[in-house]
């Protein structure tokens, strides 16, 4: 009896598992980035000037580093990671 079909099936299973890990990895990048931003905002709330403004000008209210990190994570997830996972799942 040839062992070829068994090897092919094992290879398919390994490839499928590899794809699952890759999909999971890509899907986690955005949420983990956003989570890092949320954690940063909690640990250093003074970096979010909007929470306690003291008459700051435009730039101090517009550029909020933890919120920028959250925004980058969400934008990456919606615009890049989701289409990428769709492409991976087509395999």
């Amino acid at each position, binding site marked *: 009896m040839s062992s070829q079909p068994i090897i092919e099936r094992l290879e398919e299973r390994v490839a499928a598992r590899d794809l699952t890990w890759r999909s999971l990895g890509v899907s986690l990048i*955005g949420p983990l980035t956003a989570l890092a931003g949320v954690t940063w905002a909690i640990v250093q709330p003074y970096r979010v000037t909007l929470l306690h403004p003291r008459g700051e000008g435009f730039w101090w209210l517009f*550029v909020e580093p933890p919120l920028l990190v959250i925004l*980058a994570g969400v*934008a990456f997830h919606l615009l*890049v990671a989701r289409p990428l996972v769709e492409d991976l799942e087509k395999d």
Partner: protein
Amino acid sequence: MHQPPAEHVHWLFATGFLLLGLFLLAEAVVGPEVWRRRPWRPYLWPSFAFGLGVLMWPVMVFFTSSTVHMLAHGAWAQVMMLAGASELALARGRVTHWAWRLCTPFAFIVSGGAFLLHEQNQWFFQRSSFLHHFLGWLLLLGAVFPLARALRPRWVVANAGFALVFLVIAVALFSDRDLAPIFGHLSPLAGTPHR
């Protein structure tokens, strides 16, 4: 609207580098075949790098605290545009010779050198001094990743390392303040930190 403080400009650039690092990390995870499956994706990070280089010009023009700062910002603008443009041309197929990939490690070396040359204070003078030294050495040593990527474009370690360098740059730029202590050190010559 008045000019933004320097630290705000660093934070905005940090967001750009964060996105750049995330794009590269995703590409490293899925591999080049899947990444190229949508026609717009191969252009994503090179156009982002080129755009960051273009945005560096207004920084050079408006933040002229010293000649050496102006020259450093100008050098960053040029090499970021060079790296972005060469990678765009490679993605488009306009250039095919592998040596064009060396533009990115060259950009890293010039950027790292510019960081180290234009910082005139010691590591622990204040936070921005520390970050200039740190970013300079990070870019000089991190140039090994784009160099390895140029020689072996499909090597996962090189691609992941390349992405991680941008993520660390983003963290360093987000940590930047105009005047703040670093690990408890702040030279009395640096001034008084604001909020």
